[in-house]
């Protein structure tokens, strides 16, 4: 998309990260930590060991899946901010299904569980999609509200109907379900790591979403809705249906992300399984230029950033708030640096303004 050379892009991105880390260093100093030690852990940790690499990919997996859904929704002209809730509902339905049929053979149980979670997430995403398409209800509001409902509903289910019977009999009452039958687990990809087959599933689905959006006429129609609704309708597309479909698929991918977390990592449903992936996935999708394949490197980068922040926290034992702040700074700087890539003359213009005495900037529209 950018008009500049790859080298220039890399330079801008590096500059943005360095800028964010410099400000972060001030915060670390104020917290009494050594920024060099902290940043070494943050930047090198995720890539320097088998543990680091696999854990990065573990975090990458749900990010890719959520972001794919976001890409489909955004490309079709709906802003899905509800992936968090859709993940929860997907994981809830899938877990309930897997717990209800523990004796099914894995070859049936695993795919069926994933499908159930997809369908439940789709339903949760389809509601705001339908409301937007037919009643013109703002989907940003409705998806955020449905996040809150989903979170409370899942908490209720975990404390009541779906709670692990052992938690009740031991009297601990921790809000989580019983362990799901081993047959349904996503197998580990590497021994002695948490890396599981979910990453392969995510990569394959990224390819399929690309093919869907750019190589099929249905995908093309959905993109026309996102690009120009009036033209789309004029071209014979049933715009409302496409919007509902986009939100169904988007919610489905989020639901799947939630279930993959359960079947790959935790093997049971517990509170907070979405872990903020629903929101980070939006950033990943935008980072990846709203392209299904661009999402992959963006998710890896983001996964590394999340893991690096954890590692830094352990290395210099600073409050988690500082870690999140630095994470936020990096995102802010990288997103902000985009203008230097999109508009090559921008840097020159700013520097010129500092060199010459300030004068009103000629700008269209701001004329009077």
């Amino acid at each position, binding site marked *: 998309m950018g008009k500049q050379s790859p080298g220039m892009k890399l330079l801008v991105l590096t500059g943005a990260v360095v800028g964010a880390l410099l400000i972060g260093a001030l915060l670390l100093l104020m917290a009494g930590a050594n920024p060099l030690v902290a940043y070494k852990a943050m930047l090198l940790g995720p890539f320097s060991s088998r543990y680091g690499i696999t854990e990065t990919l573990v975090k990458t997996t749900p990010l890719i899946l959520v972001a794919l859904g976001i890409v489909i929704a955004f490309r079709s002209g709906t802003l899905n901010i509800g992936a968090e809730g859709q993940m929860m509902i997907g994981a809830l339905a899938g877990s309930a299904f897997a717990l209800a049929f523990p004796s099914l053979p894995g070859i049936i149980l695993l795919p069926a569980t994933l499908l159930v979670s997809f369908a439940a997430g789709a339903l949760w995403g389809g509601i705001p999609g339908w409301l937007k398409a037919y009643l013109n209800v703002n989907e940003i509001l409705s998806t955020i509200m449905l996040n809150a409902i989903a979170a409370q509903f899942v908490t209720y289910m975990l404390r009541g109907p779906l709670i692990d019977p052992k938690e009740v009999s031991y009297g601990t009452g921790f809000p989580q379900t019983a362990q799901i039958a081993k047959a349904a687990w996503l197998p580990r990809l590497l021994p002695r790591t948490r890396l599981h087959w979910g990453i392969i599933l995510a990569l394959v689905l990224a390819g399929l979403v690309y093919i869907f959006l750019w*190589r*099929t*006429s*249905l995908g*093309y*129609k959905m993109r*026309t809705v996102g*690009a*120009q609704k*009036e*033209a*789309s*309708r*004029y*071209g*014979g*597309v*049933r715009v409302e249906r496409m919007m509902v479909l986009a939100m169904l698929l988007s919610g489905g991918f989020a639901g799947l992300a939630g279930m993959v977390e359960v079947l790959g990592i935790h093997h049971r449903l517990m509170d907070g399984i979405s872990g903020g992936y629903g929101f980070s996935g939006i950033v990943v999708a935008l980072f990846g230029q709203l392209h299904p394949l661009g999402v992959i490197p963006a998710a890896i980068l983001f996964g590394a950033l999340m893991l690096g922040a954890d590692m830094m926290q352990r290395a210099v034992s600073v409050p988690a708030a500082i870690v999140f702040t630095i994470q936020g700074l990096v995102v802010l700087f990288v997103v902000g640096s985009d203008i230097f890539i999109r508009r090559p003359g921008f840097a020159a213009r700013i520097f010129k303004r500092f060199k010459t005495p300030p*004068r*009103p*900037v*000629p700008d*269209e*529209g701001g*004329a*009077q």
Partner: protein
Amino acid sequence: MSLAESSRRIQKLEMRGIVKTFPGVLANDHVNIEVHAGEVLALLGENGAGKSTLMKVLYGLYRPDAGEILINDQQVQIASPSDAIALGIGMVHQHFMLVPTLTVVENVVLGLPSSRGMFLDLDVAAARITDLSKKYGLRVDPWAYVWQLSVGEQQRVEILKVLYRGADLLILDEPTAVLTPQEVDELFPTLRDMTQMGHSIIFITHKMREVMAISHRVTVLRNGRSVATVATQDHTPRELAQMMVGRELLEQYDKTPREPGKVALQVENLSALDEKGLPALRGISFEVRRGEILGVAGVSGNGQRQLADAIAGLHPVTGGRILIAGQDVTHKLPSQIIRAGLGYIPEDRLHTGSIPAFSITENVILKDNDRPPLAKGPFLDFAEIERYSQRLVQEFDVKTPDLETPVRTLSGGNIQKLILAREISREPVVLIAAQPTRGLDIGATEYVHQRLLEQRDAGRAILLISEELDEIFKIADRVAVIYEGQIMDILPIAEATPEKLGLLMAGVAASPVGA
């Protein structure tokens, strides 16, 4: 008058040897213009001739690469619009720069200091606006909200904004492009009054009639160069048009008389509401036969848009029937109507007719992407799509670097050619062309007309909705006049005169047809 003239700060403005280049384009190549107080200078040129660039240089939006600007023989530097305003230069943009949710007075004072410091002095400003309105005959209520105003009134607000800031020289960028003929008739006397009061006006246009009607002198731009500066009265419109395009023009198309065939489009007693729920179409009936062009003439906003959209299934119908080739398509989906044989060149080519962010190929397949030969099962057949797009681009002479170019980067004429290509190549039974040449230059307009005539001769039924009477006279076989959602009359073109149509367009007729 002489007193008024001498009180103006700008007696004479000159631009000398202006050069402005953009990457790969020489937009202005040593252009010279000169305008005096009390005079209208028409800046005539086709789209892309460099008119707007030149005026943006004058208004301080662009810095020229070379050349100088002189006011009263003194060289001046214009680095920004505020410099231009300070020197007494004002610009009315083609696309209005108004805030619809604010009142007229709020729009006018936007960005200006108030006489009461941090508090607004809207009452003072409103009084001044009322004075200015009276002085220049620009009727507008200072307390009205801009969204309530018609396009013509909004333009008056733009002009008032410029006068309020004390402009002596006004730049009007294609001011009539958005106006109805009536609104144009109201604008011109105002402009004449202004010149009487010593203002000078630079009037950008590519319409010959307007040049003849309003200007004292003309500077013709072609390919970024000023090719001629002449007194308007010494030349005929035809001579000026030739200077503008640099070649001989067709005066008349060869329109072979043709016996129209079977009825292809039937509209019976059609009614529909507009977006506000008021009647937009009130019992419209007509038919179009194969091999004929039915022109629909009328002042903008009399139901033309709803008529075209209703036939295409894009606007809900509240009564009546629409038949395409005998098949009832009332209340059908747009896709079903497309399949029944409707081609549609919509009025809004950038929002409806095309997707500007998409490539040429992606725009070519807007309608038939789910059927062979463009699709294989659920998949798009890219080899075929590319072949097809290539053919269209060649046949219709769409100027583009390649097929992956986003349509947004093409000129208006090329976008229209692409839409025309897509709609005609689908071989429709009925083709609706709504304002098909609006905003196009002479060359592109001629091209569109030729293609429409060709389609007529190929036996298609064409519904031409146009606000340009010239266009209807040139290519239509019959003309229907629409007024307030009703057809006033339908005449063979041979029996129609501008006077007759003008009266019908104003709602004067013995009795509406089909009411």
